[in-house]
């Protein structure tokens, strides 16, 4: 879901110089307890993902046939699933998939969004109109239907999930970047750079880009959470990560059917998703407030 006016607000240009902008933002972020909680969650998550093999007591795809469907206990902290796999280990390893999905998919969105945003905002004219109408269509089309359509064309698989989620997210980044460019484009220092003979590429990468990063960082952070949720939704529909890869979305989707008889199976992957998304959302909120305290 796009928060359009927030995007527009984010694009309003700051008067601070760049380094002080980031320094001030960090100072404000540090004082924001919720944002620090979010940051802590994200950092812990990354650590878990990196050190998954050290933390997980079992191989996440190894079955212990005799121990299927056990409730949480000493041997298996979070219990086991129907095939006798340790849910705790799967949740630990699942952090890798979630981070991959979040970061790679959003990365794709950012790259596509920046490219079209630059094209649209910097050159204007026909390309601007065409790109912005295209963005409108992407905003208009139900996100999940779009993801399904793309997954159907591309076929299942984790790389295709990155692509599907990535493609669908570009429009907001394009809008943010375009807005930034429009507000910066005619500033004196750009004129000066142009007068000194800088070409378009140089102006975009050296001058416009660094100055419009703040809103993009904020929005990207929030979108990581969205991507993780979309992955779960696709898994619920059977289009997600293919087994036996331990993905939280897949684990949640598979175990939801047993919600009335084995609630622990869905509880832990579900909580993992909620906490992780919460981490990114809180961090994103905090970053937004930090970059632009007016908006709070």
């Amino acid at each position, binding site marked *: 879901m796009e928060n359009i006016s927030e995007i527009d607000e984010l694009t309003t240009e700051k008067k601070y110089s760049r380094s002080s902008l980031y320094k001030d933002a960090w100072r404000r972020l540090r004082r924001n307890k919720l944002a620090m909680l979010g940051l802590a969650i994200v950092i812990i998550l990354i650590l878990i993902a990196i050190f998954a093999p050290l933390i997980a007591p079992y191989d996440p795809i190894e079955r212990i046939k005799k121990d299927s469907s056990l409730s949480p206990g000493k041997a298996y902290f979070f219990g086991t699933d129907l095939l006798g796999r340790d849910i705790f280990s799967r949740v630990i390893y699942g952090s890798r998939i979630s981070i991959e999905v979040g970061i790679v998919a959003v990365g794709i969105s950012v790259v596509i969004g920046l490219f079209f945003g630059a094209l649209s905002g910097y050159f204007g004219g026909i390309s601007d109109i065409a790109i912005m109408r295209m963005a409108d269509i992407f905003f208009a089309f139900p996100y999940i239907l779009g993801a399904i359509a793309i997954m159907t064309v591309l076929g299942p698989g984790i790389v295709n999930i990155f692509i599907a989620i990535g493609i669908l997210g570009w429009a907001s980044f394009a809008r943010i970047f375009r807005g930034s460019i429009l507000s910066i484009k005619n500033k004196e220092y750009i004129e000066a750079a142009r007068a000194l003979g800088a070409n378009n590429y140089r102006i975009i990468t050296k001058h416009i880009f660094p100055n419009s990063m703040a809103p993009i960082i904020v929005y990207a952070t929030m979108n990581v959470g969205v991507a993780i949720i979309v992955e779960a939704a696709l898994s*619920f529909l059977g289009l997600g990560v293919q087994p036996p890869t331990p993905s939280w979305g897949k684990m949640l989707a598979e175990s939801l059917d047993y919600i009335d008889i084995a609630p622990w199976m869905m509880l832990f992957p*579900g909580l993992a998703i909620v906490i992780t998304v919460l981490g990114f959302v809180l961090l994103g909120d905090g970053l937004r407030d930090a970059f632009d305290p007016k908006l709070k």
Partner: protein
Amino acid sequence: MFFYIIKRILQVIPVIIGVTLILFLLMYVIPEDPARLILQKGATEEALQNLRVKMGIDKPLYVQYWRYMTQLAKGDLGTSYRYRRPVDSILADHYPNSIKLAIAAILIEIIIGLVAGIISAVKKYSFWDILVTVSTTLAVCIPVFWLGMMMQVVFGLKLGWLPMSGMGDGSLRYYILPAVTLASVSTAFVARMTRSSMLEVMSNDYITTAYAKGLSQFKVIGKHALKNALIPVVTLIGLDLGALMGGAILTETVFSWPGVGRTIYLAILQRDAPVVIGGTLVLVLIFVFINLIVDVTYAWLDPRIRYEKKEVNV
């Protein structure tokens, strides 16, 4: 205003062309032979070829597209490959259900989202503000289908308060769980946006003026602040109505709701091109239409926007 609306309606035409074209290409990319899909078992190559000719799918894509568009102009959306029923009858079966559910969800968004946002803004930093902030943040983090199934088990099965699935006799009780599920994320967004919009509006001079006149806080907020604060919220809600209709796949799946989102979703999986294209087209039209209504609502909310003047001046 009249010319503006006419203009906007005419603008729909390129959108229709664009969307159908994209969908046509998409369905063409998927390597699928509709004739085989229809005949499937026991079909000879001749029978397949006959059917292809009959359906016109032996022709190049542009011929097929032209054929589809001319039929569309006559109001014919074609026949479903899978269900062998006219697409319009399939859509007529499902769209009203989706619209009803979307409206129920929008009502929740408006009632709960607006009220929560307003309370949160007016009682900034109070217990209620924190409660709203926490619950809206959480609502965004919980996967919709998880929330839906938990409510199903808790309110439907364990407590027995509400029906768990389907539309039943169509009474309000059947709407509550799916509508709440469907509206959860959007309600959170509406509440957050109302809050920030209200806070911004509340800092305006005319709010001070209103207080200085001797208006009660209730009236200042209800009359002077709300109408101004609603402007961005209306956009959000308007955009959402379209998204709620086609994007309700998860909710429709969890609650076995006979809606159009699931119909299109299944049609995509089943490569049932006529249903996909027809269903999506209607969805886009509704979206465009709602946008128009949102714009007209703006004029009502904000007298500074008057479309006919814009048309004359520009």
